[in-house]
Protein backbone atom coordinates (compact mmCIF):
# COMPACT_ATOMS: atom_id res chain seq x y z
CA UNK A 1 0.00 0.00 0.00
CA UNK A 2 2.76 2.38 1.08
CA UNK A 3 4.85 1.40 -1.95
CA UNK A 4 2.01 1.96 -4.41
CA UNK A 5 1.25 5.32 -2.81
CA UNK A 6 4.90 6.33 -3.06
CA UNK A 7 4.93 5.25 -6.72
CA UNK A 8 1.75 7.23 -7.40
CA UNK A 9 3.24 10.30 -5.71
CA UNK A 10 6.41 9.94 -7.74
CA UNK A 11 4.33 9.81 -10.95
CA UNK A 12 2.47 12.97 -9.88
CA UNK A 13 5.68 14.77 -8.94
CA UNK A 14 7.43 13.84 -12.19
CA UNK A 15 4.34 14.86 -14.18
CA UNK A 16 4.59 18.40 -12.79
CA UNK A 17 8.30 18.50 -13.65
CA UNK A 18 7.67 17.24 -17.20
CA UNK A 19 4.93 19.84 -17.62
CA UNK A 20 7.18 22.61 -16.32
CA UNK A 21 10.06 21.50 -18.55
CA UNK A 22 7.79 21.44 -21.59
CA UNK A 23 6.59 24.93 -20.68
CA UNK A 24 10.17 26.22 -20.39
CA UNK A 25 11.04 24.75 -23.78
CA UNK A 26 7.74 25.81 -25.43
CA UNK A 27 8.29 29.46 -24.54
CA UNK A 28 12.09 29.39 -24.93
CA UNK A 29 11.98 32.90 -26.38
CA UNK A 30 10.83 34.13 -22.97
CA UNK A 31 12.64 31.70 -20.68
CA UNK A 32 16.09 30.94 -22.10
CA UNK A 33 17.07 33.56 -24.68
CA UNK A 34 16.48 36.88 -22.82
CA UNK A 35 18.56 36.02 -19.70
CA UNK A 36 21.34 34.71 -21.93
CA UNK A 37 21.38 37.90 -24.00
CA UNK A 38 21.29 40.05 -20.84
CA UNK A 39 24.18 38.14 -19.25
CA UNK A 40 26.18 38.38 -22.49
CA UNK A 41 25.69 42.17 -22.50
CA UNK A 42 26.89 42.34 -18.89
CA UNK A 43 30.00 40.38 -19.83
CA UNK A 44 30.67 42.64 -22.83
CA UNK A 45 30.04 45.98 -21.06
CA UNK A 46 31.13 45.39 -17.47
CA UNK A 47 33.62 42.64 -18.15
CA UNK A 48 35.36 43.54 -21.40
CA UNK A 49 34.87 47.30 -21.77
CA UNK A 50 34.69 48.75 -18.23
CA UNK A 51 36.38 45.83 -16.47
CA UNK A 52 39.72 46.42 -18.20
CA UNK A 53 39.90 49.87 -16.58
CA UNK A 54 38.96 48.54 -13.13
CA UNK A 55 41.84 46.09 -12.93
CA UNK A 56 41.82 43.33 -10.32
CA UNK A 57 39.39 42.58 -7.49
CA UNK A 58 40.54 40.21 -4.75
CA UNK A 59 43.46 39.08 -6.89
CA UNK A 60 41.32 38.17 -9.94
CA UNK A 61 40.46 39.96 -13.21
CA UNK A 62 37.21 41.89 -12.89
CA UNK A 63 35.64 39.59 -15.52
CA UNK A 64 36.58 36.54 -13.42
CA UNK A 65 35.23 38.26 -10.31
CA UNK A 66 31.81 39.16 -11.72
CA UNK A 67 31.22 35.92 -13.69
CA UNK A 68 30.04 33.84 -10.67
CA UNK A 69 27.86 36.75 -9.54
CA UNK A 70 26.25 37.08 -12.96
CA UNK A 71 25.60 33.34 -13.12
CA UNK A 72 24.04 33.44 -9.67
CA UNK A 73 21.94 36.48 -10.57
CA UNK A 74 20.57 34.49 -13.52
CA UNK A 75 19.82 31.50 -11.31
CA UNK A 76 18.00 33.72 -8.79
CA UNK A 77 15.84 35.63 -11.26
CA UNK A 78 14.94 32.59 -13.37
CA UNK A 79 14.10 30.27 -10.48
CA UNK A 80 11.84 32.97 -9.08
CA UNK A 81 10.32 33.99 -12.41
CA UNK A 82 9.49 30.43 -13.46
CA UNK A 83 7.49 29.54 -10.39
CA UNK A 84 5.78 32.89 -9.95
CA UNK A 85 4.61 33.02 -13.57
CA UNK A 86 3.75 29.34 -13.93
CA UNK A 87 1.87 29.03 -10.63
CA UNK A 88 0.10 32.37 -10.91
CA UNK A 89 -0.72 31.60 -14.56
CA UNK A 90 -2.27 28.29 -13.47
CA UNK A 91 -4.20 30.08 -10.75
CA UNK A 92 -5.36 32.83 -13.08
CA UNK A 93 -6.26 30.39 -15.90
CA UNK A 94 -7.93 28.08 -13.34
CA UNK A 95 -5.98 25.01 -14.51
CA UNK A 96 -4.42 24.87 -11.05
CA UNK A 97 -7.70 23.15 -10.19
CA UNK A 98 -6.43 20.11 -12.11
CA UNK A 99 -3.90 19.67 -9.31
CA UNK A 100 -6.08 20.78 -6.43
CA UNK A 101 -8.78 18.18 -7.14
CA UNK A 102 -6.20 15.42 -7.50
CA UNK A 103 -5.06 13.26 -4.57
CA UNK A 104 -1.56 14.82 -4.65
CA UNK A 105 -0.71 16.18 -1.20
CA UNK A 106 0.10 19.87 -0.97
CA UNK A 107 3.77 19.36 -0.11
CA UNK A 108 4.16 17.35 -3.29
CA UNK A 109 2.47 19.96 -5.48
CA UNK A 110 4.80 22.54 -3.94
CA UNK A 111 7.83 20.29 -4.52
CA UNK A 112 6.89 19.84 -8.17
CA UNK A 113 6.70 23.58 -8.80
CA UNK A 114 9.92 24.19 -6.85
CA UNK A 115 11.70 21.52 -8.90
CA UNK A 116 10.40 23.18 -12.07
CA UNK A 117 11.74 26.56 -10.92
CA UNK A 118 15.10 25.05 -10.02
CA UNK A 119 15.21 23.32 -13.38
CA UNK A 120 14.87 26.61 -15.23
CA UNK A 121 17.22 28.49 -12.90
CA UNK A 122 19.93 25.87 -13.26
CA UNK A 123 19.34 25.38 -16.97
CA UNK A 124 19.68 29.08 -17.76
CA UNK A 125 22.51 29.37 -15.22
CA UNK A 126 24.35 26.61 -17.10
CA UNK A 127 23.90 28.43 -20.41
CA UNK A 128 25.27 31.65 -18.86
CA UNK A 129 28.18 29.65 -17.42
CA UNK A 130 29.05 28.50 -20.95
CA UNK A 131 28.85 32.14 -22.09
CA UNK A 132 31.15 33.15 -19.19
CA UNK A 133 33.73 30.62 -20.32
CA UNK A 134 33.70 32.26 -23.76
CA UNK A 135 34.79 35.56 -22.18
CA UNK A 136 37.21 34.47 -19.49
CA UNK A 137 39.18 31.57 -18.09
CA UNK A 138 37.18 30.82 -14.96
CA UNK A 139 38.91 28.68 -12.30
CA UNK A 140 36.94 25.98 -10.46
CA UNK A 141 38.16 25.77 -6.88
CA UNK A 142 35.40 23.74 -5.16
CA UNK A 143 32.85 21.94 -7.31
CA UNK A 144 30.71 20.95 -4.30
CA UNK A 145 30.40 24.59 -3.22
CA UNK A 146 29.34 25.60 -6.75
CA UNK A 147 26.67 22.90 -7.00
CA UNK A 148 25.36 23.18 -3.45
CA UNK A 149 25.17 26.99 -3.50
CA UNK A 150 23.41 26.95 -6.87
CA UNK A 151 20.93 24.27 -5.78
CA UNK A 152 20.10 25.88 -2.45
CA UNK A 153 19.81 29.38 -3.91
CA UNK A 154 17.55 28.27 -6.74
CA UNK A 155 15.41 26.43 -4.20
CA UNK A 156 15.12 29.53 -1.98
CA UNK A 157 14.01 31.75 -4.85
CA UNK A 158 11.71 29.16 -6.38
CA UNK A 159 10.01 29.05 -2.97
CA UNK A 160 9.93 32.85 -2.93
CA UNK A 161 8.23 32.87 -6.32
CA UNK A 162 5.69 30.32 -5.10
CA UNK A 163 4.76 32.33 -2.01
CA UNK A 164 4.50 35.49 -4.12
CA UNK A 165 2.18 33.70 -6.56
CA UNK A 166 0.00 32.38 -3.73
CA UNK A 167 -0.70 35.88 -2.45
CA UNK A 168 -0.89 37.59 -5.87
CA UNK A 169 -4.31 38.47 -7.18
CA UNK A 170 -3.21 40.20 -10.38
CA UNK A 171 -0.24 40.37 -12.71
CA UNK A 172 1.07 43.61 -11.14
CA UNK A 173 1.59 41.77 -7.89
CA UNK A 174 3.87 39.18 -9.46
CA UNK A 175 6.17 41.83 -10.94
CA UNK A 176 6.25 44.13 -7.89
CA UNK A 177 8.51 41.99 -5.69
CA UNK A 178 11.07 41.06 -8.39
CA UNK A 179 11.33 44.70 -9.50
CA UNK A 180 11.41 46.55 -6.20
CA UNK A 181 12.92 43.99 -3.82
CA UNK A 182 14.70 41.19 -5.64
CA UNK A 183 16.57 43.29 -8.23
CA UNK A 184 17.98 45.86 -5.74
CA UNK A 185 19.02 43.12 -3.31
CA UNK A 186 20.71 41.20 -6.13
CA UNK A 187 22.57 44.24 -7.51
CA UNK A 188 23.62 45.20 -3.96
CA UNK A 189 24.50 41.59 -3.10
CA UNK A 190 28.09 41.72 -4.25
CA UNK A 191 27.54 40.67 -7.85
CA UNK A 192 29.60 43.52 -9.29
CA UNK A 193 31.86 44.39 -6.36
CA UNK A 194 33.49 42.99 -3.27
CA UNK A 195 32.02 44.30 -0.01
CA UNK A 196 35.61 44.95 1.15
CA UNK A 197 35.57 47.89 -1.32
CA UNK A 198 32.70 49.52 0.67
CA UNK A 199 33.00 51.89 3.65
CA UNK A 200 32.48 50.29 7.06
CA UNK A 201 28.83 51.24 7.52
CA UNK A 202 27.94 49.96 4.04
CA UNK A 203 29.71 46.67 4.76
CA UNK A 204 27.57 46.30 7.91
CA UNK A 205 24.35 47.07 6.00
CA UNK A 206 25.33 44.64 3.23
CA UNK A 207 25.56 41.83 5.76
CA UNK A 208 21.77 42.05 6.24
CA UNK A 209 21.33 41.11 2.57
CA UNK A 210 20.89 37.32 2.25
CA UNK A 211 21.83 37.38 -1.42
CA UNK A 212 25.35 38.49 -0.48
CA UNK A 213 25.87 35.14 1.28
CA UNK A 214 24.56 33.14 -1.67
CA UNK A 215 26.68 34.97 -4.23
CA UNK A 216 29.73 34.76 -1.98
CA UNK A 217 29.34 31.01 -1.39
CA UNK A 218 28.96 30.45 -5.14
CA UNK A 219 31.96 32.68 -5.92
CA UNK A 220 33.99 30.74 -3.36
CA UNK A 221 33.31 27.60 -5.41
CA UNK A 222 35.01 29.18 -8.42
CA UNK A 223 37.65 31.51 -7.00
CA UNK A 224 38.29 29.98 -3.59
CA UNK A 225 37.77 33.32 -1.80
CA UNK A 226 34.71 34.70 -0.04
CA UNK A 227 33.55 37.97 1.52
CA UNK A 228 31.54 36.12 4.19
CA UNK A 229 31.74 33.24 6.64
CA UNK A 230 30.73 30.18 4.60
CA UNK A 231 29.15 28.39 7.59
CA UNK A 232 26.89 31.37 8.05
CA UNK A 233 26.16 31.44 4.30
CA UNK A 234 25.07 27.77 4.26
CA UNK A 235 23.16 28.25 7.51
CA UNK A 236 21.20 31.11 5.92
CA UNK A 237 20.48 29.15 2.74
CA UNK A 238 19.38 25.94 4.49
CA UNK A 239 17.42 27.92 7.08
CA UNK A 240 15.65 29.90 4.36
CA UNK A 241 14.71 26.71 2.49
CA UNK A 242 13.28 25.06 5.61
CA UNK A 243 11.41 28.18 6.77
CA UNK A 244 9.99 29.04 3.34
CA UNK A 245 8.98 25.44 2.55
CA UNK A 246 7.18 25.20 5.88
CA UNK A 247 5.46 28.54 5.29
CA UNK A 248 4.42 27.59 1.74
CA UNK A 249 2.96 24.22 2.83
CA UNK A 250 1.10 25.89 5.70
CA UNK A 251 -0.38 28.46 3.33
CA UNK A 252 -1.38 25.72 0.87
CA UNK A 253 -3.01 23.67 3.63
CA UNK A 254 -4.97 26.72 4.71
CA UNK A 255 -5.95 27.36 1.12
CA UNK A 256 -4.50 30.87 1.11
CA UNK A 257 -4.95 32.39 -2.31
CA UNK A 258 -6.22 29.19 -3.89
CA UNK A 259 -9.38 28.09 -2.06
CA UNK A 260 -12.42 30.06 -0.99
Amino acid at each position, binding site marked *: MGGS*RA*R*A*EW*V*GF*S*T*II*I*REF*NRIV*RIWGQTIVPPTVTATLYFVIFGSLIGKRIGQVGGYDYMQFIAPGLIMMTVITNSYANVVSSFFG*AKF*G*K*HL*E*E*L*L*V*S*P*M*PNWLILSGYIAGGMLRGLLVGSVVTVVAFLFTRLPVAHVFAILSAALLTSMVFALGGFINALFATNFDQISWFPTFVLAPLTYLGGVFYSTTMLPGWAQTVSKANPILYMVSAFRYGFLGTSDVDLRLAYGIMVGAVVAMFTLAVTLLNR*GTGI*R*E
Partner: protein
Amino acid sequence: MQALALRQLTKTYKNGIKALKGIDLEVAEGDFFALLGPNGAGKTTIIGIVTSLVNKTSGIVEVFGHDMDKELEVAKSCIGVVPQEMNFNMFESLFTIVVNQAGFYGIPRSLAKQRAEKYLKQLSLWDRRNSIARSLSGGMKRRLMIARALMHEPRLLILDEPTAGVDIEIRRSMWEFLRNINEQGTTIILTTHYLEEAENLCRNVAIIEGGRIIERDSMVKVLRKLQTEIFVLNLNESLAEPPEIPGFRTTLADDRTLEVEVSKGQTLNDIFAQLTAKGIRVNSMRNKVNRLEELFIRLVDVSARAAVTGT
Protein backbone atom coordinates in the same frame (compact mmCIF):
# COMPACT_ATOMS: atom_id res chain seq x y z
CA MET B 1 -22.71 1.88 0.13
CA GLN B 2 -23.17 5.62 -0.24
CA ALA B 3 -21.06 7.17 -2.97
CA LEU B 4 -21.48 10.54 -1.32
CA ALA B 5 -22.79 11.51 2.09
CA LEU B 6 -23.06 15.10 3.28
CA ARG B 7 -24.00 15.73 6.89
CA GLN B 8 -24.97 19.16 8.19
CA LEU B 9 -22.72 20.78 5.61
CA THR B 10 -22.49 24.55 5.95
CA LYS B 11 -20.53 27.21 4.14
CA THR B 12 -20.33 30.89 4.97
CA TYR B 13 -18.16 32.95 2.64
CA LYS B 14 -15.88 35.73 3.87
CA ASN B 15 -18.38 38.32 2.69
CA GLY B 16 -20.92 36.84 5.10
CA ILE B 17 -23.06 35.04 2.52
CA LYS B 18 -24.37 31.75 3.87
CA ALA B 19 -24.22 29.56 0.77
CA LEU B 20 -25.08 26.29 2.55
CA LYS B 21 -27.24 26.13 5.66
CA GLY B 22 -26.92 22.53 6.84
CA ILE B 23 -27.11 20.21 3.86
CA ASP B 24 -27.86 16.53 4.50
CA LEU B 25 -27.66 14.47 1.36
CA GLU B 26 -26.86 10.89 0.41
CA VAL B 27 -26.20 9.58 -3.07
CA ALA B 28 -26.14 5.80 -3.45
CA GLU B 29 -23.39 3.98 -5.33
CA GLY B 30 -24.35 3.48 -8.99
CA ASP B 31 -26.96 6.25 -8.96
CA PHE B 32 -27.45 8.84 -11.68
CA PHE B 33 -28.34 11.76 -9.48
CA ALA B 34 -29.56 15.26 -10.35
CA LEU B 35 -28.71 18.20 -8.13
CA LEU B 36 -30.93 21.03 -9.24
CA GLY B 37 -31.49 24.57 -8.13
CA PRO B 38 -31.60 28.14 -9.40
CA ASN B 39 -28.42 30.21 -9.83
CA GLY B 40 -26.82 30.93 -6.47
CA ALA B 41 -28.71 28.13 -4.70
CA GLY B 42 -25.50 26.44 -3.53
CA LYS B 43 -24.97 23.65 -6.09
CA THR B 44 -21.51 24.75 -7.18
CA THR B 45 -20.50 25.39 -3.55
CA ILE B 46 -21.41 21.78 -2.72
CA ILE B 47 -19.38 20.53 -5.67
CA GLY B 48 -16.52 22.86 -4.70
CA ILE B 49 -16.43 21.44 -1.17
CA VAL B 50 -16.69 17.81 -2.33
CA THR B 51 -13.83 18.33 -4.79
CA SER B 52 -11.89 20.31 -2.14
CA LEU B 53 -11.75 23.52 -4.15
CA VAL B 54 -13.78 25.29 -1.47
CA ASN B 55 -13.20 25.03 2.29
CA LYS B 56 -16.34 24.06 4.19
CA THR B 57 -17.36 25.97 7.32
CA SER B 58 -18.66 22.88 9.14
CA GLY B 59 -20.13 19.45 8.52
CA ILE B 60 -18.96 16.11 7.23
CA VAL B 61 -18.27 14.93 3.68
CA GLU B 62 -17.80 11.23 3.01
CA VAL B 63 -16.93 9.72 -0.35
CA PHE B 64 -17.49 5.95 -0.49
CA GLY B 65 -17.19 5.95 3.30
CA HIS B 66 -13.94 7.93 3.35
CA ASP B 67 -14.22 11.03 5.55
CA MET B 68 -12.58 13.91 3.68
CA ASP B 69 -11.24 15.32 6.94
CA LYS B 70 -9.40 12.10 7.72
CA GLU B 71 -8.70 10.38 4.39
CA LEU B 72 -8.55 13.28 1.98
CA GLU B 73 -6.27 11.71 -0.64
CA VAL B 74 -8.21 8.42 -0.79
CA ALA B 75 -11.51 10.29 -1.05
CA LYS B 76 -10.19 12.56 -3.81
CA SER B 77 -8.89 9.62 -5.82
CA CYS B 78 -12.49 8.31 -6.06
CA ILE B 79 -13.82 11.53 -7.64
CA GLY B 80 -13.71 12.87 -11.18
CA VAL B 81 -15.06 16.35 -11.79
CA VAL B 82 -16.24 18.25 -14.85
CA PRO B 83 -16.51 21.85 -13.69
CA GLN B 84 -18.84 24.53 -14.97
CA GLU B 85 -16.02 26.79 -16.19
CA MET B 86 -13.22 25.74 -18.54
CA ASN B 87 -10.20 25.04 -16.35
CA PHE B 88 -7.51 23.55 -18.56
CA ASN B 89 -4.37 25.14 -19.95
CA MET B 90 -5.51 26.67 -23.24
CA PHE B 91 -1.97 26.45 -24.64
CA GLU B 92 -1.52 22.72 -24.18
CA SER B 93 -2.61 20.00 -26.58
CA LEU B 94 -5.59 17.79 -25.75
CA PHE B 95 -3.35 14.74 -25.45
CA THR B 96 -1.00 16.50 -23.03
CA ILE B 97 -3.88 17.76 -20.90
CA VAL B 98 -5.45 14.35 -20.39
CA VAL B 99 -2.16 12.47 -19.95
CA ASN B 100 -0.94 14.99 -17.37
CA GLN B 101 -4.22 14.78 -15.49
CA ALA B 102 -3.78 11.01 -15.22
CA GLY B 103 -0.26 11.63 -13.92
CA PHE B 104 -1.59 13.80 -11.09
CA TYR B 105 -3.63 10.78 -10.02
CA GLY B 106 -0.55 8.55 -10.10
CA ILE B 107 -1.39 6.74 -13.36
CA PRO B 108 1.88 5.72 -15.09
CA ARG B 109 2.50 7.48 -18.38
CA SER B 110 2.26 4.36 -20.57
CA LEU B 111 -1.18 3.50 -19.16
CA ALA B 112 -2.23 7.15 -19.30
CA LYS B 113 -1.49 7.23 -23.04
CA GLN B 114 -3.66 4.14 -23.61
CA ARG B 115 -6.52 5.70 -21.67
CA ALA B 116 -6.08 9.00 -23.46
CA GLU B 117 -6.62 7.20 -26.77
CA LYS B 118 -9.64 5.32 -25.38
CA TYR B 119 -11.46 8.35 -23.98
CA LEU B 120 -10.51 10.84 -26.68
CA LYS B 121 -11.83 8.34 -29.24
CA GLN B 122 -15.03 7.71 -27.28
CA LEU B 123 -15.65 11.44 -27.11
CA SER B 124 -14.78 11.98 -30.80
CA LEU B 125 -11.71 14.08 -30.02
CA TRP B 126 -8.94 11.72 -31.13
CA ASP B 127 -8.45 13.46 -34.48
CA ARG B 128 -7.81 16.70 -32.62
CA ARG B 129 -5.47 15.23 -29.99
CA ASN B 130 -2.51 17.37 -31.06
CA SER B 131 -4.53 20.59 -31.34
CA ILE B 132 -4.06 23.36 -28.83
CA ALA B 133 -7.04 23.41 -26.47
CA ARG B 134 -8.01 27.00 -27.17
CA SER B 135 -8.59 26.15 -30.83
CA LEU B 136 -11.48 23.82 -29.93
CA SER B 137 -15.16 24.67 -30.25
CA GLY B 138 -17.27 25.06 -27.09
CA GLY B 139 -18.70 21.56 -27.41
CA MET B 140 -15.26 20.03 -27.89
CA LYS B 141 -13.95 21.82 -24.81
CA ARG B 142 -16.81 20.37 -22.75
CA ARG B 143 -16.05 16.89 -24.06
CA LEU B 144 -12.36 17.38 -23.34
CA MET B 145 -13.21 18.08 -19.70
CA ILE B 146 -15.25 14.86 -19.55
CA ALA B 147 -12.36 12.87 -21.06
CA ARG B 148 -9.96 14.45 -18.59
CA ALA B 149 -12.22 13.65 -15.62
CA LEU B 150 -12.38 9.98 -16.67
CA MET B 151 -8.63 9.43 -17.04
CA HIS B 152 -8.25 7.93 -13.55
CA GLU B 153 -11.54 6.02 -14.00
CA PRO B 154 -13.27 7.52 -10.95
CA ARG B 155 -16.04 5.74 -9.06
CA LEU B 156 -17.92 9.02 -8.69
CA LEU B 157 -18.21 11.47 -11.57
CA ILE B 158 -19.51 14.95 -10.80
CA LEU B 159 -20.68 17.06 -13.72
CA ASP B 160 -21.47 20.73 -13.15
CA GLU B 161 -23.57 21.82 -16.13
CA PRO B 162 -21.62 19.72 -18.63
CA THR B 163 -23.80 20.55 -21.61
CA ALA B 164 -24.10 24.31 -21.13
CA GLY B 165 -23.86 26.02 -24.51
CA VAL B 166 -23.67 22.75 -26.42
CA ASP B 167 -25.90 22.14 -29.43
CA ILE B 168 -28.66 19.57 -29.14
CA GLU B 169 -26.98 16.93 -31.31
CA ILE B 170 -23.79 16.91 -29.25
CA ARG B 171 -25.83 17.16 -26.05
CA ARG B 172 -27.72 14.01 -26.94
CA SER B 173 -24.52 12.14 -27.82
CA MET B 174 -23.08 13.22 -24.46
CA TRP B 175 -26.20 11.90 -22.72
CA GLU B 176 -25.70 8.56 -24.43
CA PHE B 177 -22.06 8.50 -23.36
CA LEU B 178 -22.92 9.34 -19.74
CA ARG B 179 -25.68 6.71 -19.66
CA ASN B 180 -23.14 4.08 -20.79
CA ILE B 181 -20.64 5.10 -18.15
CA ASN B 182 -23.32 4.95 -15.49
CA GLU B 183 -24.42 1.51 -16.67
CA GLN B 184 -20.81 0.37 -16.29
CA GLY B 185 -20.98 1.27 -12.59
CA THR B 186 -19.85 4.87 -12.28
CA THR B 187 -22.00 6.94 -9.93
CA ILE B 188 -22.89 10.24 -11.56
CA ILE B 189 -24.01 13.49 -9.96
CA LEU B 190 -25.27 16.03 -12.44
CA THR B 191 -26.21 19.66 -12.12
CA THR B 192 -27.89 21.22 -15.09
CA HIS B 193 -30.17 24.03 -16.12
CA TYR B 194 -31.64 21.82 -18.85
CA LEU B 195 -34.26 20.08 -16.77
CA GLU B 196 -35.15 17.87 -19.70
CA GLU B 197 -31.61 16.51 -19.33
CA ALA B 198 -32.12 15.67 -15.66
CA GLU B 199 -35.53 14.11 -16.38
CA ASN B 200 -34.06 11.97 -19.15
CA LEU B 201 -30.92 10.81 -17.38
CA CYS B 202 -31.37 10.81 -13.62
CA ARG B 203 -33.05 8.32 -11.34
CA ASN B 204 -32.97 10.47 -8.23
CA VAL B 205 -33.07 14.18 -7.68
CA ALA B 206 -32.46 16.80 -5.02
CA ILE B 207 -33.60 20.38 -5.42
CA ILE B 208 -31.65 22.99 -3.52
CA GLU B 209 -32.73 26.55 -2.88
CA GLY B 210 -31.17 29.18 -0.63
CA GLY B 211 -28.58 26.74 0.70
CA ARG B 212 -31.16 24.14 1.76
CA ILE B 213 -32.47 20.94 0.21
CA ILE B 214 -36.16 21.53 -0.47
CA GLU B 215 -36.90 18.25 -2.29
CA ARG B 216 -35.15 14.89 -2.33
CA ASP B 217 -36.73 11.83 -3.89
CA SER B 218 -36.72 9.53 -6.90
CA MET B 219 -37.38 11.30 -10.19
CA VAL B 220 -40.58 9.27 -10.67
CA LYS B 221 -41.98 10.25 -7.28
CA VAL B 222 -41.01 13.87 -7.69
CA LEU B 223 -42.73 14.08 -11.05
CA ARG B 224 -45.80 12.37 -9.62
CA LYS B 225 -46.23 15.38 -7.35
CA LEU B 226 -46.99 17.46 -10.37
CA GLN B 227 -50.80 17.79 -10.35
CA THR B 228 -51.33 19.66 -13.61
CA GLU B 229 -49.80 20.06 -17.04
CA ILE B 230 -50.33 22.82 -19.59
CA PHE B 231 -50.85 21.88 -23.22
CA VAL B 232 -50.41 24.34 -26.07
CA LEU B 233 -52.82 23.85 -28.98
CA ASN B 234 -52.19 25.49 -32.34
CA LEU B 235 -55.61 26.31 -33.82
CA ASN B 236 -56.74 26.27 -37.39
CA GLU B 237 -58.91 29.37 -36.89
CA SER B 238 -58.32 32.70 -35.16
CA LEU B 239 -60.17 33.30 -31.88
CA ALA B 240 -60.94 36.60 -30.18
CA GLU B 241 -61.51 35.03 -26.75
CA PRO B 242 -60.55 31.70 -25.19
CA PRO B 243 -63.34 29.14 -25.55
CA GLU B 244 -65.06 27.99 -22.35
CA ILE B 245 -64.39 24.32 -21.69
CA PRO B 246 -66.07 23.20 -18.44
CA GLY B 247 -63.53 21.76 -15.98
CA PHE B 248 -60.49 23.22 -17.77
CA ARG B 249 -58.72 26.56 -17.44
CA THR B 250 -58.05 28.05 -20.88
CA THR B 251 -56.06 31.10 -22.00
CA LEU B 252 -55.09 32.51 -25.38
CA ALA B 253 -51.41 33.10 -25.92
CA ASP B 254 -52.30 34.69 -29.26
CA ASP B 255 -55.30 34.47 -31.58
CA ARG B 256 -54.32 30.99 -32.87
CA THR B 257 -52.61 29.56 -29.77
CA LEU B 258 -54.71 28.13 -26.95
CA GLU B 259 -53.27 26.99 -23.63
CA VAL B 260 -55.25 24.44 -21.63
CA GLU B 261 -54.41 23.36 -18.08
CA VAL B 262 -55.13 19.66 -17.55
CA SER B 263 -55.34 18.30 -14.01
CA LYS B 264 -54.58 14.74 -12.91
CA GLY B 265 -57.55 12.48 -13.77
CA GLN B 266 -58.80 14.62 -16.64
CA THR B 267 -58.45 13.38 -20.20
CA LEU B 268 -57.47 15.13 -23.37
CA ASN B 269 -60.45 13.52 -25.13
CA ASP B 270 -62.79 15.83 -23.18
CA ILE B 271 -60.96 18.87 -24.51
CA PHE B 272 -61.05 17.71 -28.11
CA ALA B 273 -64.71 16.68 -27.86
CA GLN B 274 -65.72 20.12 -26.65
CA LEU B 275 -63.50 21.97 -29.12
CA THR B 276 -64.96 19.89 -31.97
CA ALA B 277 -68.47 20.69 -30.74
CA LYS B 278 -67.60 24.40 -30.94
CA GLY B 279 -66.21 23.95 -34.45
CA ILE B 280 -62.61 24.69 -33.42
CA ARG B 281 -60.04 22.58 -35.23
CA VAL B 282 -56.60 21.84 -33.76
CA ASN B 283 -53.57 21.56 -36.05
CA SER B 284 -50.98 20.47 -33.48
CA MET B 285 -50.34 20.16 -29.77
CA ARG B 286 -47.33 20.20 -27.40
CA ASN B 287 -46.44 20.47 -23.70
CA LYS B 288 -45.86 24.07 -22.66
CA VAL B 289 -42.78 23.20 -20.56
CA ASN B 290 -41.31 19.91 -19.53
CA ARG B 291 -42.79 18.44 -16.40
CA LEU B 292 -39.74 18.71 -14.21
CA GLU B 293 -39.29 22.33 -15.18
CA GLU B 294 -42.83 23.12 -14.09
CA LEU B 295 -42.39 21.36 -10.76
CA PHE B 296 -39.01 22.99 -10.24
CA ILE B 297 -40.45 26.47 -10.73
CA ARG B 298 -43.28 25.75 -8.30
CA LEU B 299 -41.04 24.32 -5.58
CA VAL B 300 -38.52 27.11 -5.82
CA ASP B 301 -41.32 29.67 -5.82
CA VAL B 302 -42.92 28.16 -2.70
CA SER B 303 -39.55 28.03 -0.96
CA ALA B 304 -38.79 31.66 -1.83
CA ARG B 305 -42.20 32.81 -0.55
CA ALA B 306 -41.71 30.81 2.67
CA ALA B 307 -38.31 32.50 3.17
CA VAL B 308 -39.91 35.95 2.76
CA THR B 309 -42.80 35.26 5.14
CA GLY B 310 -40.61 33.37 7.58
CA THR B 311 -42.75 30.21 7.49
